[in-house]
């Protein structure tokens, strides 16, 4: 009799605990992404399963190898409705690769990428973690996963010498999006070299469906040379201590999410971004130009905010943002501490294709004359290159010019020289630019304000004077005069110097 009632009670407790622990995030159909309630607060004391693990999320059934993906992609949403034993094999590899055009850096990575592979788990899973340290590694490495409850987040148990593997196991007990990173001394250097990534612990009922899911992780980098300085750059410990970053990047290199590597979506789709910030130092003011976040899972946790323009991602933290795209065009992913975007590389893109919606966004409807006070021509200081040979061949000028263009001009005149309608004139097949070579040189040296007509369209804007070396002026002009359908002789250093001299003498 006693046994009978105990069994009934036991199963009732188990059932209600299971029901309570179902996350209400999404639920799918009627209320997408309302909130995650981690309502299993541990107040229910449940009988242990035969494996000895806490089975508040149901029994642990079966085992499988985790699918790991390289950024910006994530593994498919988890469809199983039970916890399992998940085997993760993650490799540490140190190698040299470009961090920017012409600039090499030695990265220390998980899975051969910065950020490291994305790990997708379900709450209740037992993760058997195997950390492999490639034999060619210089350093021992370990891993601290913020999803782990235990010493060092796993770091105490995963200290791995080159050419060895460490294995340890943990249960993911709380849903959320968590950072993982290396915790071997000196920790800051290991993180600064790219040893970070994200592990997602899905709630029991999963996340609401999204049409596109992407993985973006910000990091700050510290090099001996300045931003863009060519050659192999070593890590600079002193700059890292002073939090004086040279590069602030999404996914480990300048332009990692730009051009043909931009994220993509179609009008009407819902995009979910799993966003992390590896640091090591800087906090991110995460914003997507041209969109508002419909839902923000604040700090990758349970709380959901709505209708947010810019959200903070702490160093060593995360956020999940979801938004539905309504109009076609390029959305720009930025850290709104904006000099990081335009001068340190924190710029990514989402290309949205599909039909226009002129009510939501009309594009420019009219352009009229306005007789205002008039702006002064501003100076924009930029770093010049150090080496200045007197002559260069066409190929070299084109190569260097392209680099200079991307660093200084592309933000306004765009990657294909198309400019932005109504604001910045095109350079591609520009009649205005091609008509007068000396005028083009002078615009580079002095800036330009006032109305001009390019290819039949009026532009009345200001181009700031860009301060750069004569060599860079010759390079970038050679590049624009010979790109996107333009054709001209290479611009020589002597022409630039002559124009400068003429200007100085008061022409």
């Amino acid at each position, binding site marked *: 009799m006693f046994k009978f009632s105990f069994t009934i009670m036991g199963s009732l407790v188990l059932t209600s605990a299971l029901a309570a622990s179902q996350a209400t995030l999404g639920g799918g159909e009627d209320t997408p992404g309302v909130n995650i309630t981690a309502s299993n607060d541990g107040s229910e004391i449940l009988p242990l399963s035969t494996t000895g693990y806490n089975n508040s999320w149901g029994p642990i059934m079966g085992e499988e190898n985790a699918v790991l993906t390289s950024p910006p992609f994530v593994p498919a949403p988890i469809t199983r409705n039970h916890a399992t034993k998940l085997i993760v094999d993650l490799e540490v590899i*140190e*190698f*040299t690769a470009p961090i920017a055009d012409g600039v090499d850096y*030695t990265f220390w990575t998980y899975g051969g990428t910065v950020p490291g592979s994305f790990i997708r788990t379900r709450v209740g899973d037992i993760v058997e973690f195997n950390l492999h340290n490639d*034999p*060619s*590694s*210089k*350093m*021992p490495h*370990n891993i601290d996963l913020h999803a782990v409850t235990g*010493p*060092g987040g796993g*770091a*105490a*148990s*995963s*200290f*791995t*010498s*080159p*050419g*060895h593997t460490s294995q340890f196991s943990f249960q993911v007990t709380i849903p959320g999006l968590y950072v993982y990173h290396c*915790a*071997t*001394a*000196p*920790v800051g*250097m290991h993180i600064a*070299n790219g040893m970070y990534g994200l592990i997602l612990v899905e709630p029991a009922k999963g996340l609401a469906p999204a049409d596109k899911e992407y993985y973006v992780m910000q990091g700050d980098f510290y090099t*001996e040379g300045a931003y863009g300085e060519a050659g192999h750059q*070593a*890590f*600079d*410990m*002193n700059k890292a201590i002073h939090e004086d970053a040279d590069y602030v990047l999404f996914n480990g290199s300048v332009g990692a999410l730009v051009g043909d590597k931009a994220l993509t979506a179609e009008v009407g789709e819902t995009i979910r971004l799993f966003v992390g910030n590896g640091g090591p130092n800087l906090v991110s003011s995460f914003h997507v130009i041209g969109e508002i976040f419909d839902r923000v899972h604040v700090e990758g946790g349970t709380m959901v905010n709505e209708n947010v323009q810019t959200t903070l991602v702490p160093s060593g933290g995360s956020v999940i943002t979801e938004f539905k795209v309504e109009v076609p065009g390029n959305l720009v992913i930025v850290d709104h501490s904006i000099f990081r975007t335009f001068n340190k590389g924190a710029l990514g893109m989402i290309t949205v294709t599909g039909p226009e919606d002129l009510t939501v966004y009309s594009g420019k409807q009219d352009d009229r004359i306005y007789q205002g006070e008039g702006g002064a021509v501003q100076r924009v200081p930029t770093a010049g290159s150090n080496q200045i040979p007197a002559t260069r061949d066409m190929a070299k000028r084109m190569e260097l010019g392209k680099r200079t263009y991307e660093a200084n001009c592309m933000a306004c005149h765009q990657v294909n020289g198309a400019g932005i309608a109504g604001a910045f004139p095109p350079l591609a097949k520009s009649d205005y630019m091609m008509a007068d070579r000396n005028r083009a040189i002078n615009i580079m040296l002095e800036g330009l304000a006032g109305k001009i007509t390019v290819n039949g369209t009026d532009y009345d804007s200001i181009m700031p004077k860009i301060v750069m070396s004569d060599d860079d002026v010759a390079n970038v002009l050679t590049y624009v005069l010979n790109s996107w359908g333009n054709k001209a002789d290479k611009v020589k250093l002597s022409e630039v110097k002559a124009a400068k001299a003429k200007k100085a003498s008061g022409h």
Partner: protein
Amino acid sequence: MRKLILHSSPLLRYAVGVTLLLSVGCSKPVAPPAIELTALITIPDGMYRPLYPGKSEPAEVVLSGFLLEEHAVTNQQFLSFVKINPRWQRSRVRSLFADKGYLQHWVGDVELATDSELSPVTNVSWFAARAYAEWAGRRLPTLAEWEYISMASETSAYGRDEKGYNQLILNWYGKVTPPIPPAVRFRVANFFGVYDMHGLIWEWVDDFNSALVTGESRGNSALDRNLFCGSGSIGSADPSDYAAFMRFAFRSSLEAHYTTRNQGFRCAADLK
């Protein structure tokens, strides 16, 4: 028995390994011709500043003078050793004394890869390094001796405060390991006349386990606070010496039978 040893704690394996080594090595090894060994540099008495002084230890201790090989043991030298001591050849070495990576960069048991003769021998375990040193009538340097010599720059016994000194070392740590390191005497000798303390390979020392950094380098246990590198950086004598931290961290990840692609050794000897 072997399985028991292999899966037990590192300390036990160390103890068993050393005992076996001493007992197995009772047949006297054939001594090498003196001409093949590296020249020894005389290091006079000096003051050593340990990175992790013990609680009651002074910041500076007298280090007795000793002899140190001018450069690391090369592949060529190690080849001579294994030819005369075949139980240290790759296919014959006991797994207790060296793991599967032992001499993996050699073409065969007694055959080197092309152009690797003068490169420092790597993929050798602590047991193998000790065996060579004993055969040569020498020993491995102690951690104190090695770190003392490593602190020198080209012009002074204490180079740590020189501008750019630490950065030079960190630059090397940031570079990828080539499969065969360059030949020994890679850069100019330091103040003591010793080559390659930095920039070529990691090196075994006799008591490599004596200052442990744990895997969890942020530390949350009051018990071993001065060994955890997060608070260990507070406990260390020179928190700015990140290069030294990394060497301590590297050594702490090792066990005596481990072989590593970028680690070799050099020998020391007592002053007569």
